[in-house]
């Protein structure tokens, strides 16, 4: 069943009882009981947690339930600084205590089933919860079976560290610490689009900054599935040249484009590409990825050959399933899959939904931004910044002239801004108080 959104809004704008607007006109049996719209958010990362916080701020009467399997928030942005030794896992780990106080219900559990018709979500713990609107902010699913040999046993040795956690980022740091001087670190870059486009190239910088200090004879081989550096190319090349000898015979970084990892062997410690087997003392392969598993449960992984979720840009509602909204990395958009975008599109979705619940049309011309810093060493950073505005002809959010670009050059000032960004985006996402005691440093 499909109803044109404009038609629906026209119909619903005429009714004064705001809460019944949350459902499509034809789904009267699932209209709101007790007079409160019910929104369930799956995933409390940058997208989901921000959405939940702003939804309670802008539509306080809406009942917001968050379902999140993890007990605390671990930040992917800044996690490369843990590999450098600048920060420790606890410095990029923050509590959910504050955001828990903001929302109506917090469920520490994993979603195992979604019924789009009944509009219910079922969890591994056996709970079934009803929603008027469902927000899926589960991030990414890593596809280990796309890399031959990357099975459960191999995953004990070879880490992706693309979802930051003690078992991933923490273990990879320990492996780098244990590696002898003169060793080789082999890392990979997945095919675009992937979470955090500059992240792999920043990772090379951050591991190199550690090697330069602690084990200067060591090498880093970067196997990139893409034909070229996928983000901030000029700035990364400049950093590699300036700090790590790139372009000279003594370069610490050996960058190999068009080298997609096809296989791993955790016993022989090799990564196989189309061309050869590359041996490493420490191996870090990020497998191909797609929208989070929970998006598959809802049947919304319909875009880009079933990898990502096509959405309506004005509301972030699925183009496939009504009342299901998709945030952050899972969504198929022209935005980079960054923490800033997840944070700001969380607000954009809360804005659209709160307007609809209030009986108004969602803003037909929203503005959303991305600001993303990368660290070139342990003391300098650089950015990409973009403002996206609704273009009615292209039916997409695109940057106006001049509203997109990168740093002229790396700087210590931007490292201070990067650290500031982290503290502010963590606060904005998780509702951390002004006197929160941060320990992370740039």
């Amino acid at each position, binding site marked *: 069943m499909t109803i044109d959104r404009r038609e629906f809004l026209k119909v619903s704008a005429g009714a004064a009882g705001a809460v019944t607007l949350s459902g499509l006109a034809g789904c009267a049996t699932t209209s709101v009981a007790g007079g409160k719209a019910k929104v369930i958010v799956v995933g409390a990362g940058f997208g989901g947690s921000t959405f939940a916080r702003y939804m309670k701020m802008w539509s306080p009467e809406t009942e917001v339930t968050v379902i999140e399997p993890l007990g605390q928030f671990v930040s992917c942005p800044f996690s490369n600084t843990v590999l450098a030794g600048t920060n420790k896992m606890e410095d990029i780990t923050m509590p959910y205590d504050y955001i828990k106080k903001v929302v109506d219900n917090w469920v520490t559990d994993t979603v195992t089933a979604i019924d789009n018709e009944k509009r219910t979500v079922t969890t591994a713990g056996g709970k079934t919860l009803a929603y008027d609107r469902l927000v899926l902010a589960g991030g990414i699913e890593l596809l280990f079976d796309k890399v031959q040999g990357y099975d459960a046993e191999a995953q004990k040795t070879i880490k992706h560290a693309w979802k930051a956690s003690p078992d991933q980022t923490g273990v990879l740091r320990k492996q780098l610490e244990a590696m002898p001087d003169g060793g080789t670190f082999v890392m990979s870059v997945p095919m675009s689009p992937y979470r955090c486009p500059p992240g792999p190239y920043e990772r090379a910088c951050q591991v190199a900054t550690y090697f330069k200090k602690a084990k200067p004879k060591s090498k880093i081989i970067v196997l990139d599935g893409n034909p070229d550096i996928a983000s901030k190319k000029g700035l990364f090349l400049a950093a590699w040249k300036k700090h790590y000898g790139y372009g000279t015979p003594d370069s610490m970084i050996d960058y190999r484009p068009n080298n997609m990892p096809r296989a791993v062997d955790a016993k022989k410690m090799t990564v196989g590409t189309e061309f050869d087997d590359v041996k490493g003392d420490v191996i870090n392969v990020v497998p191909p990825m797609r929208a989070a598993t929970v998006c598959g449960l809802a049947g919304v992984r319909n875009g880009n050959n079933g990898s990502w979720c096509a959405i309506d840009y004005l509301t972030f509602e699925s183009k496939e399933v009504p009342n299901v909204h998709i945030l952050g990395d899972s969504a198929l958009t022209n935005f980079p899959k960054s923490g800033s975008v997840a944070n700001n599109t969380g*607000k954009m979705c809360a804005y659209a939904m709160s307007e609809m619940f209030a009986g108004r049309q969602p803003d037909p011309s929203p503005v959303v931004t991305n600001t993303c810093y990368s660290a070139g060493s342990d003391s300098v950073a650089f950015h990409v*910044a973009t403002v*996206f505005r609704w273009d009615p002809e292209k039916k997409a959010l695109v940057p106006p002239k*001049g509203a997109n670009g990168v740093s002229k050059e790396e700087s210590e000032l931007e490292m201070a801004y990067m650290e*500031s*960004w982290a503290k*502010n985006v963590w606060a*904005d996402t998780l509702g951390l108080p002004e006197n929160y005691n941060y320990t992370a440093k740039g």
Partner: protein
Amino acid sequence: MKKSIALTLLIAGALGAAASAHADPRARFMAANCAYCHGPDGHSRGAVPSLAGLEAKYFVDQMKAFRDGSRPATVMQKHAMGYTEAEYEALGKWFESHK
């Protein structure tokens, strides 16, 4: 679109600051876009300046200076190019009224 912003501002002005939270949800949303760098409600936790409580005129003047390059910037020229002058005004009013 410009019409609707103008109308929203007119309504916001007519109802006064007390009702501004409901009168201009668009300005409130755009202001929230700034939070990942400038802190929730414009209260920064780091080296990037806070925006909360700035005078509206000062805010608008800075945005114009970022746009034309007369105030040197790292990221701010790109952000200034992404908003209209009417939006600078709406944002300036929002931050002025949120101390």
